[in-house]
């Protein structure tokens, strides 16, 4: 018997312009839990997708029980006994628990040429597997009657029912309550006793310490190393995850910071699992960073501030005066602007022109006789912003969908600048754009700060956050866990420490 149940050797994967994985190794022993750790974008998910054949690796090999195997799609992975419990569940809530467990492999009874689904066997089997994990759910109940955490446990039962020998848990606890986490770990210990090899992806240090046997750290798509969990302290892990220098692509800080312009106090979401009791302020001419791990509810908090999400409590003061913001129009009237994270989803109007994409925020401001659009004025504003932000396009009538990501982002920036905001929220402003355009966006941010505009920047890229921000708030799990206002204290280690204070 081979020492390792599953081994990945020298896995590399490139996407256009990026080397996502560079000769990464991974090895997990039977009956053990390997924690896979790394910052956002370190390549953990990409590695798992390569394992499951969702991505085709450029080079590298997979060994199972010491034998080389080729996995081209998730089905084959399942046949080899590899299963994954996803961070984002993909179940069908409107169908029963049993159907969800046996989707795609329903037990059949045959009556001559007619094949029918054998519901009885399916539900009996489901009940058996649930019992085995100590879950007392009715297999005929609709999945939607369970909580998210319970669904996650069903998902685990499904992985077990595949008789999986390797199970990957991708941030399984992000939506679990403490009790459910305990229960999950109990199940994982059972699985360990049965010799199942497990890979556990999580950012939560205390959980890693509780459950992991070994810890593997990845950074920027490379393999850093693997250590027995007992040998590493939290500090060690963080420094191994971070360990890199900032590169100089950020403009010099040359803007003056003025008085406080916005104060948000005790903002809480109407959803219990979202942001809670968040208080922060921002000054004129300041670039304020919001750091944290993916899922820390930073986007949700900003959307709450901008009136796209509902607040259960909290006050927002602008220039010392309390304002009510319940929809985006209120926020715009209060001189806020918001560049969203998901450019395609709620940023651009793909089938409209650049002009319409910019003009949408000001069409109600430039009217002749109260209702006719003042096209000449609007054209001039759009034309000016195309020149100012050097948006590369033949004309303002070009469809925005034909532009590159960076230029699209600049169009969105123009949209908000046309509305002349005092405070501009930029959620992951450089996501998915190339390095040159990134630099241009940074220059634009610096210029805006010079003009006295306040900028709130959410960024999951540590160097960007530290390179651009004058001050940083760090969020974790819906709460603001730290504020760093001295530039010398703005280190990746400090941000990571706050970002993992669950």
């Amino acid at each position: 018997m081979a020492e390792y149940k599953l081994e990945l050797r020298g896995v590399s994967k490139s996407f256009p312009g990026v080397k996502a994985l560079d000769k990464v190794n991974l090895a997990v022993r039977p009956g053990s839990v390997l924690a896979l750790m790394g910052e956002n974008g370190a390549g953990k998910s990409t590695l798992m997708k390569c394992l499951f054949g969702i991505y085709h690796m450029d080079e590298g090999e997979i060994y199972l029980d010491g034998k080389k195997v080729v996995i081209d799609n998730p089905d084959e992975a399942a046949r080899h006994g590899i299963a994954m419990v996803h961070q984002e569940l993909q179940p069908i809530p409107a169908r029963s628990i049993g159907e969800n467990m046996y989707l795609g492999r329903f037990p059949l009874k045959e009556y001559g040429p007619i094949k029918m689904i054998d519901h009885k066997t399916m539900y009996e089997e489901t009940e058996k597997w649930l019992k085995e994990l100590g879950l007392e759910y009715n297999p005929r109940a609709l999945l939607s009657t369970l909580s998210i955490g319970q669904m996650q446990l069903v998902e685990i039962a499904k992985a077990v029912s595949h008789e999986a020998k390797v199970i990957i848990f991708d941030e399984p606890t992000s939506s679990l309550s403490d009790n459910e986490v305990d229960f999950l770990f109990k199940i994982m210990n059972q699985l360990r006793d049965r010799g199942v090899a497990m890979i556990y992806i999580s950012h939560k240090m205390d959980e890693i310490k509780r459950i992991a046997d070994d810890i593997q750290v990845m950074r920027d798509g490379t393999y850093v190393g693997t250590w027995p969990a007992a040998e590493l302290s939290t500090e060690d892990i963080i420094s191994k995850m971070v360990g890199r220098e900032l590169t100089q692509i950020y403009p010099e800080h040359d803007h003056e910071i003025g008085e406080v312009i916005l104060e948000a106090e005790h903002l809480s979401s109407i959803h219990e699992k979202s942001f809670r009791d968040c208080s922060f302020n921002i000054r004129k001419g300041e670039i304020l960073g919001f750091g944290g791990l993916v899922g820390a509810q930073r986007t949700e908090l900003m959307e709450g501030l901008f009136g796209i999400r509902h607040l259960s409590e909290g006050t927002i003061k602008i220039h010392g005066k309390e304002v009510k913001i319940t929809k985006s129009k209120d926020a715009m009237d209060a001189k806020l602007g918001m560049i969203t994270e998901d450019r395609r989803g709620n940023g651009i109007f793909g089938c409209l022109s650049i002009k319409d994409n910019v003009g949408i925020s000001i069409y109600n401001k430039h009217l002749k006789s109260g209702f006719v659009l003042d096209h000449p004025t609007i054209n001039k504003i759009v034309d000016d912003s195309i020149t100012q932000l050097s948006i590369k396009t033949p004309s303002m009538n070009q469809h925005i969908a034909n532009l590159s990501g960076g230029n699209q982002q600049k169009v969105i920036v123009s949209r908000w600048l046309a509305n002349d905001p005092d405070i501009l929220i930029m959620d992951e402003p450089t996501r998915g754009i190339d390095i040159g355009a990134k630099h241009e966006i940074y220059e634009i941010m610096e210029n805006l700060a010079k003009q006295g505009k306040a900028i709130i920047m959410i960024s999951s890229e540590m160097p960007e956050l530290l390179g651009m921000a004058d001050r940083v708030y760090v969020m974790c799990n819906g709460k603001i866990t730290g504020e760093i206002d001295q530039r010398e204290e703005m280190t990746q280690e400090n941000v990571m420490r706050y970002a993992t204070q669950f």
Partner: protein
Amino acid sequence: MQKTQKQKIVDFLINNGVIIVMFILVIYTGLTTNNFLTKNNFMNLLANMSYRLVIALGISGAVITGGCDLSGGRMVGFGACIAGTLLQKVEYGGRFFKEGFMASITPLNPFVVLILVMIICGCFGAVTGWFIAFLHVPPFISTLAMMEIIYGLGLIYTGATPLGGYIEGYTNFAKPGLLGINWLVWMALAMAGITWFIYNMTRHGKYMYAIGGNKQAAEVAGVPVKLTMILIYAKASAFFAMAGFMLGAKAGGASINTGLSYEMEGIAACALGGVSVTGGRGKVSSAIIGVAVLELLKVALQFLGVDANSQYIAIGIVIFVAISLDIRKYVQKK
């Protein structure tokens, strides 16, 4: 270079396929049959297009925002019936309002009646829009519900009896007017002009395209999404009412089944003309082209001796082919 030139021609043919096929059909029909390319036939065609265009224009707003309006046909009938009851001759035997207050004030001025039916139907459209905007009922379902309600109301109102005996001031709307062209055509042109103005020169139009293009982004960008949706469906129903008014004038009578299923022709015309059924794209000219294609096709087939039943099959095939070509333009880009 040679190849790109060839590619350009292919693109042009695909992009304008419907119109080109239409031209060929019209020329062929004109050459092979008598009486097709005559002034009389042309005027007739325009008159038939007029109210269909008004319906298509009404529906276009709903389609551009990614919806549809199934209440169109019934709304046309409802508008035609209300207009009819208010515009009957005093001496007409089968008068709807035989006595009482309403009998004493009818017939009203036709222009007043036109405004009135547009307002009444517009209010019903606003209700449909309210359900779509505030309660997130899908347009397909909410307009279906309104279709049933309007039909019921129309039946109760008219007692299911057909109307007739209109005053001349009303039926004159369907007579040749300025430049010898039917007044109905002028009305349709006026509505096309107004719609063009709304779509291109007002906030409402821009908001409509934005919602059709990306509703979430529109919400973030401060577009009053709910109000815009209500206005779109109110406007659509007002247009349907006008089409009903026009249809009544042309037919010299109306029943609750007037205009039945015309909304389907309207949606088909929009789609044929290039209003994207997935939202965000479409112009007034799209509605005009779509209506023209459908009507020309019907008349040409009729002249070519294709029997009325087979014409439906031909129309169905044209819709299949035209939309498949149209969708290609957008699908390939992804």
